[in-house]
């Protein structure tokens, strides 16, 4: 089992190296992604839900003086995210279009992005947790710059500089976290840090400044308002597999970091900064939501919508109770799957019609019936219709926000922001349905006669994503049972 955990991130890394050295690109990549998915599935199902805490752990001590080690292990939350990573990775590799320039590098970069995310989710050591995430930075830069579309160069620069500054702020925050305990107890080991937290070393003014550094650092990586401007343009210009992996998986690293490191270690600081987080996340939902409505092309709509939906996850995190955090964790999975499916189909539309502008599209429903149907499913999932995982998770997030009541204090700030966030559902219904209408409805147009319906490889990839959404939406307990014990450990 321990070996399987290693395989989830090692398979993509090793195959990327192999591809760079000349193995057949597509075949190797698909096999590696399949291996990772099967391992992630076995690990997810094999995780013992009766016992909270980290399982399948293995470690290698690197620098004894700093208590720095290569420490890998999973709990319910990371198992869920590893599953998400490998599902989206397989879908992304599977549907990757034919590349006429540098095919090997193309697939190697996709695999390295996936490996970076998977490694970060599997690491239980602050150093490698951070390092793995950064592993994805350069491949993303290369992918958008070389194979992107539209204004790719400026998008590539923007995402790279923005994320590198976010990461370095995060690094300073993590160093601060490492230095908080007295010298003899300093460690990079997340498990040990969580045990230390109960002795109160992570409280007081120091922990508050460290927490805000972590919040800003992770926040930039998750596109927390007002640090979100890198995301829409980058996703719009990125090649389809990168948009899927980045919006769907890699961006969840920041949220995962808050759930894994910041909240459990510094609950007091988290409560202290909750009002600020509430204001910012309201910005994500309302401001970015309204900005989404005004978009005139599908790729930007999706890019902005993925920023907006982060607001709900932050709401679950800010409410800091079991039900809200459960919702946040589930929403990370649900959003990752749905946005990946939408970006995949957006890429197909661009390839077939040559445009994603709403004014140029319309009436595609008759020439692309299957795509129209599946796009509809993903749209409903994204809005949060019952049956899909998004519904279950958003519901939990709202319960979490409203449950946050102080007896006798009346309507508190969590409930106010919760109410605002409810309007976000209406906003997302507006922009997603408008997009759907503008693309698929209307009179069939003669110029779409040569347009073909969804090809097989895209079909399988999207079906994989949508099926996962439906399974989790109908049986959310499969995921929640794994996630909840870990959350109950630090939420009293």
């Amino acid at each position: 089992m321990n070996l399987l955990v290693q395989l989830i991130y090692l398979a993509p890394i090793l195959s990327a190296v192999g591809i760079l050295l000349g193995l057949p690109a597509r075949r190797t990549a698909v096999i590696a992604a399949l291996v990772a998915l099967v391992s992630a599935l076995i690990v997810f199902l094999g995780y013992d839900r009766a016992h909270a805490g980290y399982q399948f752990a293995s470690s290698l001590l690197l620098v004894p003086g700093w208590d720095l080690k290569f420490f890998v292990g999973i709990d319910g939350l990371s198992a869920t995210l590893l599953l998400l990573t490998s599902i989206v990775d397989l879908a992304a590799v599977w549907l990757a279009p034919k590349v006429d320039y540098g095919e090997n590098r193309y697939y190697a970069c996709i695999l390295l992005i996936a490996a970076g995310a998977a490694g970060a989710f599997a690491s239980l050591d602050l150093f490698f947790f951070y390092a793995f995430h950064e592993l994805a930075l350069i491949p993303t830069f290369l992918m958008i710059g070389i194979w992107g579309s539209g204004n790719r160069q400026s998008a590539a620069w923007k995402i790279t500089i923005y994320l590198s500054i976010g990461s370095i702020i995060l690094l300073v925050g993590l160093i601060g976290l490492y230095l908080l305990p007295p010298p003899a107890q300093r460690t990079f080991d997340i498990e040990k840090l969580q045990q230390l937290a109960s002795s109160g070393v992570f409280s007081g003014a120091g922990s508050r400044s460290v927490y805000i550094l972590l919040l800003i650092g992770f926040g930039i990586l998750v596109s927390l308002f007002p640090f979100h401007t890198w995301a829409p343009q980058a996703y719009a210009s990125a090649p389809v597999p990168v948009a899927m992996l980045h919006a769907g998986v890699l961006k969840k690293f920041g949220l995962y970091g808050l759930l894994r490191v910041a909240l459990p270690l510094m609950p007091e600081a988290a409560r202290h900064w909750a009002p600020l987080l509430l204001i910012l996340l309201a910005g994500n939902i309302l401001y970015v939501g309204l900005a989404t409505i005004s978009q005139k092309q599908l790729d930007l709509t999706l890019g902005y919508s993925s920023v907006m939906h982060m607001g709900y996850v932050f709401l679950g995190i800010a409410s800091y109770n079991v039900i809200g955090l459960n919702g946040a964790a589930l929403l990370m999975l649900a959003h990752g799957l749905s946005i990946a499916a939408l970006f995949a189909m957006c890429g197909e539309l661009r390839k077939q019609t040559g445009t994603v502008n709403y004014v140029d599209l319309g009436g595609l429903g008759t020439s692309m019936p299957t795509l129209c149907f599946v796009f509809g499913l993903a749209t409903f999932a994204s809005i949060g219709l019952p049956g899909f995982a998004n519904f279950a998770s958003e519901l939990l997030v709202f319960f979490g926000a409203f449950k946050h009541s102080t007896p006798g204090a009346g309507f508190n700030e969590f409930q106010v922001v919760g109410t605002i966030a409810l309007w976000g559902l209406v906003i997302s219904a507006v922009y997603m349905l408008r997009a759907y209408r503008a693309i698929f409805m209307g009179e069939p147009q003669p110029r779409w006669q040569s347009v073909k319906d969804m090809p097989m490889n895209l079909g399988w990839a999207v079906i994989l994503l949508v099926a996962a959404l439906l399974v989790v939406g109908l049986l959310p307990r499969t995921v929640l049972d794994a996630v909840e014990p870990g959350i109950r450990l630090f939420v009293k």
Partner: protein
Amino acid sequence: MTIPPVFLELFVLALGILILVLESFAEKRDRKLFAIIGIIGLVVVFLFLQGSVPRDSGMLSYTVDWPAIFFKKVAVVTTIVVLIMSIDYADTIKRFLPGGSSQSGLGEFFALPILTCAGMMWMSSAIDFILIFVSLELVTISFYVLVPFMRRNAASLEAGVKYLILSALSTGFFVYGITWIYGVTGQTNLNQLQLALPSIPLENQPGLLFGALLVLVGLGFKIAAAPFQFWVPDVYQGAPTPITAFLSVGSKSVGFIVLLRVVLAFQTLPAVADKLITAITLLAAATLLYGNLAALPQTNFKRLLAYSSIGHAGYLLIAVAAIGSLDSGLAVVVYLAAYLLMTLLSFLILVIVSAHADGDDIVHFNGLGKRSPFLAFGLLVAMMSLAGVPLTAGFLGKFLVFKVAFETRQFFLIALGILTVGCGFYFYLKVVKAMYWQPAPANASAIPVSRLSMVAMWIMVVLIFALGIFPQFATGLLPLASR
């Protein structure tokens, strides 16, 4: 095996003189053979250094502690790589040398770096201002010859004049500072100075501070810290590329060992030391900002590396300013080890590419990813490491620098550091962009690489990753577990 102190320096000196003699008497031999002899000799020295351990040298002005051994290794490795580069660069040199036999003068080009290396090794061990000064001059005077070595190239001559004048000026500051310190304390030996400092009366402290600041100015020139950096871009661009690499790595690292030793010696007198630290903090801030901001618009790769060298001096100065932390010296050492690997790797690839493309602008790297994937990969690794991407050596250095800065509450420098790391990502990735985004020029072909350079390149690539992924690997290479 115990080697008497100073023996290794003498061996290196003899090696340099041997090559000079060979140059005069073996006129018909291929000069590249001399470089190979030098490389082999230095590899032997490195192996001896690898086996040495800190011990009492039995001398007053010469120490064999772990930083001394480490910086000697830095000097030797740098010289080896510089010689490897010089072999590839020999054809360019020949074009700019005045007549005579086809290879006349090349032997000197291989001998002088070895003499410089001896000076750097002495400087690593020197704990007396007089010995520091003498070894510094051995280094600097060799550079006076090496920088304008391409005598028919105006840029090289211009660089030589600039380096000569400014370096002589900085030496003046340095010596003047030493005299003030000697005047107040009556000591030139750093160990004695450390003991004498606590008893200095208050009215003499301004004189002491003045002397220390002058020494700081003199060293500021050597390590290319702003505002003493203005010679760097022109000299780096004009000098023969291997010599630029030598200046940027060797000269800087020995500057830092002397700076560390001086700052440490002054720690026994907090009143002066605190002001010295403040000065270093300001120097670090100015250096960080100048190096990284001025690098942004550069289009010439050599100039870019010059500004990057200034920028990295800034990060190193942060670690020096955080001298109060236990790990400060460790941060400097690890950062310099990383800096050595990634800078030498960049220069090595620059020499190969510019010899082929006949120019060292960033556009000459266009499409390198397609033309020569291995060279491009090597440069990609160097740029990632310079920018500070995790899992490379450069990240480990930055990590330690930020750690010691946090420990000593240098939040101002941390804030600047965050900003400049962001700048760094931009200008280092400009090179990556040229290699992978831009199409290759129409007439471009794959670039031939000599076997020696290829081996050197791969060794450095592997070391960069090794140091970044397994920091404990550094425990073998550097005395990481020193505390």
